[in-house]
């Protein structure tokens, strides 16, 4: 097995406070499951929370997370920073993130290659960006700002998108690679997003995967999608996190693990949340893949 070679390696040092998530499967922590988790203490490698849900001051969310954090590794996953936004980052949002990370000291912090804010309005969705030099500079400047402010490495998640831009001059995977190389951030490889975007844009998932900076992967996401049709009647996949992981995504996950070796893997479910045991079974399925994944030869460092 050969790994893709990348140009020069990262020159920015990754901040020290980055122990990383355990190489196991984890679950998104949802409030309907607080009690299950606290009472049954399931064998889960880590939990992941959406940062913005914990921007509240107190109450049951912090009560549960404080107790869960005492027993489990934690990933804090932001969905509202608008790193791909044309506007400056919201400093208040960044301050709240800093306080949250200081409070819980998670093993990982991640955000999206997307925008969600414009003209002061928050759109509550992960919106696509055109991949050109201007965007590359903007995204890198934002990630530098985030990593400097939070004093830790960020994992950037590859997006699921439904439209492309005539203005794009770079392929998505090349854009991501450039961001990772310039900023020293890591990659949150969302395998479902790879599948969704490859179907939606008629890309080859094997080639897309191999064009990503796989040596920088710090976490993998698996989730379910919904099927729709576009204006021409062609299949359009919607990244809705409301279904079990699809067979095609499990297969792509196995392929990714062959390239990356075992990586902390999250089962994401944000809609139509089933009983905790259902998610636990999916997490166990991911652990079977992790166990089977061959440990790759140590990658050469220049």
């Amino acid at each position: 097995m050969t790994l893709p070679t990348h140009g020069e390696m990262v020159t920015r040092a990754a901040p020290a406070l980055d122990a990383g998530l355990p190489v196991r499967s984890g679950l998104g922590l949802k409030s309907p499951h607080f009690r299950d988790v606290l009472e049954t203490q399931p064998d889960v490698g880590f939990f992941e929370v959406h940062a913005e849900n914990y921007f509240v001051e107190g109450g049951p969310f912090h009560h549960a997370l404080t107790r869960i954090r005492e027993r489990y590794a934690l990933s804090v996953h932001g969905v509202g920073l608008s790193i791909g936004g044309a506007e400056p980052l919201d400093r208040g949002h960044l301050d709240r993130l800093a306080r949250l990370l200081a409070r819980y000291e998670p093993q990982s912090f991640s955000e999206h290659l997307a925008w969600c804010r414009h003209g002061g309005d928050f759109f509550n969705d992960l919106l696509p960006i055109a991949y050109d030099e201007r965007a590359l500079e903007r995204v890198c400047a934002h990630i530098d700002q985030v990593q400097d402010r939070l004093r830790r490495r960020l994992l950037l998640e590859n997006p699921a998108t439904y439209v492309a831009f005539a203005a794009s001059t770079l392929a998505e995977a090349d854009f991501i690679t450039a961001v990772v190389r310039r900023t020293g951030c890591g990659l949150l490889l969302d395998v479902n997003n790879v599948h969704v975007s490859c179907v939606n844009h008629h890309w080859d998932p094997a080639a897309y995967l191999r064009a990503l900076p796989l040596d920088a992967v710090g976490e993998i996401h698996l989730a379910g999608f919904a099927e729709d049709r576009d204006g021409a009647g062609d299949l359009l996949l919607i990244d809705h996190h409301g279904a079990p992981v699809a067979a095609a995504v499990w297969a792509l996950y196995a392929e990714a693990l062959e390239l990356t070796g075992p990586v902390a893997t999250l089962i994401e479910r944000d809609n139509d949340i089933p009983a905790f045991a259902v998610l636990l079974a999916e997490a166990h399925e991911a652990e079977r893949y992790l166990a089977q994944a061959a440990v790759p030869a140590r990658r050469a460092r220049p």
Partner: protein
Amino acid sequence: MSDQAGFANALRDRLAPCPAGLTTWNGSDPAARLAVYRNNVWVSLIDALADGFPVTQALVGADFFRAMAQCFIAAQLPRSALLAEYGADFPDFIAGFAPADPVPYLADVARLELLRVRAYHAADADPVAPERLQLALSQPETLGQWGLRLHPSLSVLASDYAVVALWAAHQGVGDLGAVDPSRAETALVLRAGLEVEVIRLAAGAAGFIQQVLAGACLGAAVEQAMARAADFDFSEMLALLLRTGAITDLVPPEQAAS
């Protein structure tokens, strides 16, 4: 106009033109794909409001509620990614939403639900230490000059309608058909431990807590309560506040404001 400004406009307004420069691999109309984003934005925000205002929704039905929520979103998108705060202006919007006029108590039920969401996420605070309470109670001659600090989750809603009974009937407490909505009620909302409680306050108790929230010392608050209702029972009031952990501190006379 930047690329994102055009995209943002198309998300806000479904009649806005599809922004220029969007492409699709198969040459299909990008507007159909853009609609996925617009749908994500609107449905997720309507769902967020439905999560926060379940009884409001139950009172008018999902179709009416979602149409009303859509009008609210058109008027005001979230300004922050903290969606627990989105909806702060929804009750006032409902009050001015003409199609909801036949349900005059709807806005107040929404106000009650907003206070519940706020109470749920409010800052934590421990109940006052028993010895501090003992100290105040052991000095009856100065007791009236002490101030009270109440839990950050605590709030009072005085309504011209039976908001507590309407809300409780949707929690399986009481019969909705037997509720007279036009009976005025005052609700106390607070988080006791991890549970948000909604408690109907008699006129005297409502007056007492409103005075305390306004910074009055115990004596002045009791006086106001008695003026409103001669049968106001201070020990009953104190028992309720202690049971719910609502008193977080007692301020001695020399530090109390009034």
